[in-house]
């Protein structure tokens, strides 16, 4: 059921007729196909509910006006910006979806080294504007088409550069936040009228309420501006590029280089990762191309580097003895970007890298050092502009064996996970059979290292029901394996307690029932009390996980 004409008119008065819609085809575009860009909710064969209306606010005042009306009429709402993941979509019939696309300003403070961004400033444009001033930012692994603010205020947002630059929770400074009750809160130094330089104070430090480790996933009001820390970029103001589509390549000074380090074993990998974490020489580190599957990664790189090649060429390329040899050498690998702040710094870092390589018996992939491939890889990793490649093989994928503990815990388990996936793909035709090990992940998912983030890609075809079912099987197989190894919740189940399988929000009663059984139910009990104070009509949705203390206190 659509909004009543009176309510619609009230919203329209806030944003203007051009920026609100109830057209069913417009609304349909704000539904998430849970088998498509689920970001770890699914894969299922259905969509999230249809919004009652979609509104595009153009300013903080407009956001406030919308939220006040939502409170007045008790209409649930959710803001999203770049819509990569299910968590951005509403979970109640007739809830309002805010599309933050119209708010996209970027202001860079060179002296204090931060950028104040509005929601639709995507990673790519924040990066290009920052680079003009000698800076860069932590780009979440989701890639540069995703909103910097959404990652910072709404989600974990770690990525290949997090080792050097930290994750979103480490980079978030002051913020402007329209709370679920319509009040505007200025957090950190902004709240004390001292600018954007600090997230904690002087002024209210609400980081724990408004973002925490994982972010509030849009269920707790709307962030309209946030300041993020910037980090040094010694390269040119604009990355010069060359090459023919799709193989664009970076032409950067010799002091900015990518090296793919290959290891003889997972033990050597763990030791190498540990040394890389400690040595402070890595600007960006990611196991990237293995996401295609261990068997095909080198052939895929070849295809992506040649405008005339396509996926149908895979078998022929894989049969090439040189590619075979290089693929074998790159079985266990990580790609690094080393950035010298000066020539001396670069020389030191390369020397340290050589020493680490020597100590763990690793080697540099010569294939990845071939000039055109090197320059392509460098651009790929620095801009993270090819995230759609995650989907290129089959159109959809789900993450499995999502492991983020210490590398010495996880590395020895990689082959066992790989075998499980390989066995399944060999037995059933439902998921891509491109090598059991299809792990991708950042060298560290915390500033300074310590832990790595890993995710195996299960590529499937959402157009094929049997294939969706196969991906679901893998989610279950993988979760059982995670349980057996005491590794916690797997990626496929990450949001299982935030949104129901049918795409709707949980009711409070359902959340009480489910979350009171957690080992530490007071986490959600605390959030329940916060919600009562800031979000009295419960308009944000169940991604903000709350549990009435009464449901567990008496037990």
């Amino acid at each position: 059921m659509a909004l009543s004409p009176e309510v619609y008119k009230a919203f329209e008065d806030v944003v203007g007729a051009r920026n609100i819609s109830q057209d069913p085809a417009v609304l349909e575009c704000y539904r998430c196909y849970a088998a498509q860009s689920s970001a770890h909710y699914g894969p299922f064969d259905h969509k999230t509910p249809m919004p009652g209306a979609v509104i595009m606010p153009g300013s903080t005042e407009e956001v406030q006006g919308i939220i006040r009306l939502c409170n007045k009429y008790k209409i649930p709402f959710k803001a999203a910006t770049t819509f990569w993941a299910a968590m951005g979509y509403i979970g109640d019939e007739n809830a309002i979806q805010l599309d933050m696309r119209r708010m996209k300003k970027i202001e860079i403070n060179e002296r204090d080294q931060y950028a104040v961004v509005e929601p639709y400033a995507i990673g790519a444009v924040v990066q290009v504007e920052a680079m003009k001033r000698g800076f860069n930012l932590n780009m979440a692994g989701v890639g540069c088409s995703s909103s910097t603010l959404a990652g910072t205020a709404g989600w974990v947002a770690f990525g290949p550069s997090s080792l050097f630059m930290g994750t979103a929770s480490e980079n978030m400074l002051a913020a402007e936040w329209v709370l679920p009750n319509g009040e505007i809160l200025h957090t950190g130094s902004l709240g004390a009228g001292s600018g954007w330089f600090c997230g904690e104070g002087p002024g209210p430090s609400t980081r724990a309420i408004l973002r925490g480790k994982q972010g509030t996933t849009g269920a707790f009001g709307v962030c309209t501006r946030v300041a993020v820390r910037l980090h040094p970029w010694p390269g040119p103001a604009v990355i010069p590029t060359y090459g023919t589509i799709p193989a664009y390549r970076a032409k950067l000074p010799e002091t900015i280089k990518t090296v793919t380090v290959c290891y003889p074993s997972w033990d050597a990998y763990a030791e190498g990762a540990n040394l890389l974490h400690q040595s402070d020489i890595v600007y960006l580190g990611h196991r990237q191309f293995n996401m295609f599957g261990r068997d095909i990664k080198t052939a895929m790189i070849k295809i992506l580097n040649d405008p005339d090649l396509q996926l149908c060429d895979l078998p022929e390329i894989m049969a090439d003895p040189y590619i075979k040899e290089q693929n074998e050498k790159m079985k266990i690998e990580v790609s690094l970007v080393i950035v010298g702040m000066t020539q001396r710094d670069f020389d030191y870092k390369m020397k340290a890298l050589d020493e680490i390589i020597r100590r763990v018996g690793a080697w540099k992939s010569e294939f990845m050092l071939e000039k055109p491939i090197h320059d392509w890889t460098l651009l790929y990793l620095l801009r993270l502009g090819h995230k759609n490649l995650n989907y290129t093989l089959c159109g959809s994928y789900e993450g499995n064996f999502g492991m983020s503990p210490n590398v010495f815990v996880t590395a020895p388990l990689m082959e066992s996970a790989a075998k499980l996936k390989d066995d399944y793909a060999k037995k059933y035709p439902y998921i891509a059979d491109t090598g059991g090990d299809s792990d991708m992940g950042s060298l560290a998912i915390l500033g300074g290292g310590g832990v790595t983030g890993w995710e195996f890609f299960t590529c499937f075809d959402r157009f094929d029901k049997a294939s969706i079912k196969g991906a679901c099987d893998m989610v279950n197989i993988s979760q059982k394996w995670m349980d057996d190894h005491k590794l916690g919740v797997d990626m496929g189940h990450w949001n299982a307690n935030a949104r129901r399988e049918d795409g709707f929000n949980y009711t409070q009663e359902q959340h009480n029932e489910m979350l009171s059984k957690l080992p530490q139910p007071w986490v959600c009990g605390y959030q329940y009390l916060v919600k009562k104070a800031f979000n009295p009509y419960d308009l944000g949705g169940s991604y903000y996980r709350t549990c009435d203390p009464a449901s567990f206190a008496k037990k």
Partner: protein
Amino acid sequence: MALKDFRPMMERCSNCLGCKWIPFDKIQSQRFGENCPINLYYEFHIYSARGKFQAAQGLLDGEYGYTDALLASTQACTACGACDIACKVCRYNLEPLDFNIALKADAVEKGNILPVQKEMIASLKKEQTMIIGAKKANRSAWAKGLKLKDAMKEGAEVIFFPGCKYSYDKKLQGYARTAAELLINAGVDLGYMGEADMCCASRAYQQGLMADFDARSEANIKAFKKAGVKTIVTPCSDCYYAFKRLYAAKGLEVEVLHVVEYIDKLISEKKLKLKKPVNMTVTYHDPCHLGRLGEPYVAWNGTEKKIMNQVHTWEPRRPRYNGAYGIYDAPRRVLAAIPGLTLVEMERIREYALCCGAGAACEQTYPEVSKFTANERVTEANSTGAEALVTACPWCESNFASAVDENGKKIEVIDIIDLVSRAL
């Protein structure tokens, strides 16, 4: 392909939103990073290739018909293909542009035709041009006094095909003459289609008016065959695309050259020397239909084939039009051959150039979108500091002529033929 045949693509699109931006690797600034005219103008998600991929599923499932927004997103789309090439940086199994056109055709089939489109169709039928108000009787005015063979009477291997805009626009007629004269003076035995010279109907195709496109193109192909045409030279990028890609798919086997390619050839063969300095700083706008959509046609009649269980490929290998081999260098070489001329590039160029806003007859069907897009491009052109904006397409040229940048400032718009003639 009918709309329903695109269902697998609709469902396999990954909602990455790459189709709203130029390829991310190429972004140089926030201001000039986006690429889709309709998305820039309307902003809601439905106004993008991705949005349409999603909305069309509800349409096919009968959840709604052509709503106002779906219709606007379908009809205002300039069929510029910017989404298509951005998508293909990563994807090998999606064809957003072909889908956009199939959606247009489906809308038309279901009776969604704008009044102005009806006028265009009527004009095409009666006067063999989609320029409303133009008369067939005046079509050859541009050629008056030129020593051109009438291909239909005398036969001609190389014909000059001016296209409707150069034929009827008073200012452009002169450039068509100049171009033809350049070829004649260089010794080309040049003809034109005489009485059989008619609209290529590329813009009918771009609007999804398939029956009209089919009728016109088939008649033209017949005429070309009868006249024994081996090479078509055209100054119009829309015609170029029609012959090179659309007519080729219908079996026309001729060499197709844009005038700018021919001039480039004459310069490289030293048959044409540009001597007079033109002391100007200019920027060049790549027309969509000469640039990213100007790649040669490759025949294909195949099906999907999955390998490695679920990896999508095509059997036989499917041509992959991603703009890699469009016509970008020939115009730039011609500009470089003009003494005194300096070329400064915009940020969105070559396969990722922004559309001028005139594609798919948008300037007539959705003038506000078209004007907005032209203004956006002129803002970018003025940001380079160039004194003039050069292009190789009459539709771009006329759309830019009245456009202003975000500060209300215009820019001189120059046809590349005119620029060459200034250097003769």
